[in-house]
């Protein structure tokens, strides 16, 4: 079956097997920032933005993305021009092994797009579907709060 998606702002048309999992499709197409951690929707390493909402691509069929817009970390920023979230995550020491980070960045972006003035609890809730075993989450929460305040022009 043919699906049409807009991914990181670019229109794509892909011929996919109806049983194909969205995570597998996207990784096959080269979007390697999306990671596989459990294949069961628990860990959040495969998080993407689907029409701006954080979604776990390992428990979605490719067809469910038809005519929708997808954002991955490749579309968030580049190493030359990183998104502010990417920059603050690094500055706050929020990145250790980095395997969960693309997913966590996208969950954080979804939050900030909707709520430019999040509380600490809002941040915790936004990323509670992204498991991280390295960090203890402290620095990631700090980074998201700091990003929000910079975006509001406070820092």
């Amino acid at each position, binding site marked *: 079956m043919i699906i049409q998606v807009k991914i990181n702002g670019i229109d794509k048309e892909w011929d996919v097997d109806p049983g194909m999992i969205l995570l597998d499709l996207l990784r096959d197409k080269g979007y390697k920032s999306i990671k596989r951690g459990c294949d069961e929707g*628990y*860990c959040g390493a495969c998080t993407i933005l689907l029409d701006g909402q954080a979604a776990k691509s390992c428990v979605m069929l490719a067809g469910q993305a038809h005519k929708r817009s997808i954002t991955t970390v490749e579309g*968030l920023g580049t190493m030359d021009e990183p998104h502010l979230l990417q920059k603050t995550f690094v500055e706050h020491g929020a*990145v250790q*092994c980095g395997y969960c980070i693309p997913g966590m960045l996208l969950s954080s972006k979804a939050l900030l797009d909707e709520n430019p003035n999040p509380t600490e609890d809002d941040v915790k809730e936004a990323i509670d579907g992204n498991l991280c075993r*390295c960090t203890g*989450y402290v620095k990631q929460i700090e980074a998201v709060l700091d990003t929000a305040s910079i975006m509001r022009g406070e820092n």
Partner: protein
Amino acid sequence: MAVKIKDELNVVGKSVLKVDGLSLACGKAKFVDDYELPECLVCKVMASPFAHARIKKIDKTRALQIPGVVEIITHEDIPRVPHTTAGQGYPEPSPYDTFTLDNKVRYVGDRVLAVAAETEEAALEALRVIEVEYEELEPVLSARDSMKEGAPVIHDEPEAHVIIPVPYEPERNLAAHVDFKIGDMEKGFAEADVVLEKEYETQYAQHCPMEPHIAATWLDENNRLVILTSTQVPFHVRRIVAERLQMPIGKVRVIKPRIGGGFGTKQEVLVEDVCAFLTLKTKRPVKYEMTRAEEFISSRTRHPQILNMKVGAKKDGTLTAISMKIIMNTGAYGSHALTVMCNSGSKILPMYNKVMNVDFCGDTVYTNMPVGGAYRGYGATQGAFAMEVIMDEIARELNMDPVEFRKINHIRSGEGSPVFAALGEGKAGVEQKIGSCGLDRCIERALEEFDWEGREERRKLAPPGKKRGFGMCILMQGSSIPEIDMGAASMKINEDGSFNLLVGATDLGTGSDTVLAQVAAEVLGISVDDFIVYSSDTDMTPFDVGAYASSTTYLSGYAVKNCAEKVKMQILKAAGDMLGVDPYDLTIENKKVTDMNGNSVTIAEVARRALYERDQHQIGAMASHITHKSPPPFAAHFVEVDVDENTGFAEVKKYVCTIDCGTAINPKLAEGQCEGAILNGISYALTEEYIFNKKGRMMNADFGSYKIFNTADLPEMKVILVPTYEETGPYGAKSVSEININGALPAISNAIFDAVGVRLRTAPFTGEKILMGMLGKNNGDPQVKPEEEAAAEEVPEENNAAEENNSNGNGVNNNNKNNGSENRKDKEGLSGEPASYGNYPAKKKKKR
């Protein structure tokens, strides 16, 4: 040439950005699965459905007819090479009791065979249709059952053996044994006013790196085997896989790309061998990635332990004797069976070094259960639980503040412990005196930050329906394995004054690439940005034992420092020629070499001259390092817990950790190590456990039913670095990565007791267990011994005193029965009764 000691540090001690941070945050950094390998086959492994069985027959005919199935290997297709999966230095102290594939399966999840197919679907379909005929054998599903006379023998194959002279008796399921005695135990206990004997138990747990085990293998253009793998130990992988494949080591290359966390489970050589065999058979690239369920069931775990502690103390708080007896369950294979158990003593007993009477006895036993392995903390986690809880219990018996009690007894700078020499890792330990020790300051700083004095006021602020409690513990670990571990680095200059820094040390997300570059940058007066850091590739980087035993900063960091010092000498010599002065009179700073008159040349100019212009040579060096000490980092952990009176559910509200890791080379990364370890520890203490069915199958192999903490569970957490200077470490550094996973078990157990008077000696501390304790019932504990078994146990005469005391839960010596001021009665939580083993039951003499 003398090295000038710098007064001020420019790079070390600064939170420079992680060298791979932005690449990771942009999703660019490559993990194993991110490499595209043309024509790559997918490997899937069949897991045993039985805990203990012999494979009678495997019929792969139907599976081979499935389109896309390329190769199936069973134990009949590959050489039978006994080995250990433990990625330790050679000769490994773990027994050689494992085969890549065998005709016997020893736990649910053990490997039966492996398939390589064009697609995952075809591989899975093959696993579905392959017929395997098993002869079921009686399984052994607990450590104590394993020790019984006549228990089924798990390793009955003749090949199982150890390659170093250590006790190993597979015919009675004994995978490792260590014991030692210092002083006179009888005298020690006789001198005590209070003697407590208690039993503690820790549970299975999994490391849960977000990236599961994964490896890809292929043959390069010269027919050499290349292994791209998510490992902590690339050089051990090369050696062990070569041995299994019976290939020369030189024919194997191991590449470690970015790693998605390890925590010890990737110190195992688990996936590389099957992949490699399939590549050799098919001549094609093969990739094997464990599923999350395989990660739980078939990879490695934290060894469960039963710890029997007996401690004597005088009224003034002086300890008189400590006895520690451990039964450790290593599961079906003896990976790290000896050394994890040794560490439960060697990283724990020296803390209370004033005691002159110490005995230790550890037995590691095989069962038909998941396999233990290295896990952050490495036995110290289990040992710290038992030791730091019994110290709390004894302090309460003596009516002393647990902090004051510890201050009387803990080890200090300049002191040693006979335990250091008595307990090593597969050989005798190395005697050492403590150099840097900031434990006193850690305690003071934590008391202040936590407001320990104000806790009675805070207790009153508990919300309705909750009881608030406070607990603490002190910790030590080590830094590297002395006189065993070796790390090395090499470095070369480029025309622009940049350097390639090649290290065998394995950054698995810890930030070691950054920390090592900081050490080199400090020596050479340049910045971290001037380094291209590469770790690790056995063809390119010098040897390093790998990332384990809290060694990278302390050991590999020193190797990098040695290497940078050599390079510095070469630069100074070339610059001296250029400036016409003696190299002794030069300083190197800010990317320049400057003489006494202020004349200078840049490092880039030195490089260009050396490479192109005059007296051409490559400025570069290689250096290595071994250590003669394993200086412990120290920490104090303080915790505040609220317990729900209706459900028993315990919630950590506040967690303060003060840590002396020597110089923190990169404070922010060091804090991150602490925070991650603490949360993993809390998660282990409160929720993480393996649930087994009666046939030994782990029933909760997913993140839905095996709970690891997320942001919703996060307490208020404060980490404070308390700097000291360790003379033997690079710029004064010690280790930081493991120690802080050990505090949550004891500190939270102590806090729960403080809150509701229930003493939890069996982890995890679930609401159910706490509630049962509050109700005065012990049967909430699934791990309590069956009654008939407890009744059948012989109680030797000399243990009768302890047995008597057990009735009130307080093993107080006769002359000081009760201090009377205990305001929280010990409701004798769960399975606190001392056992009567030592550790194996003596040949039964029926007592009439």
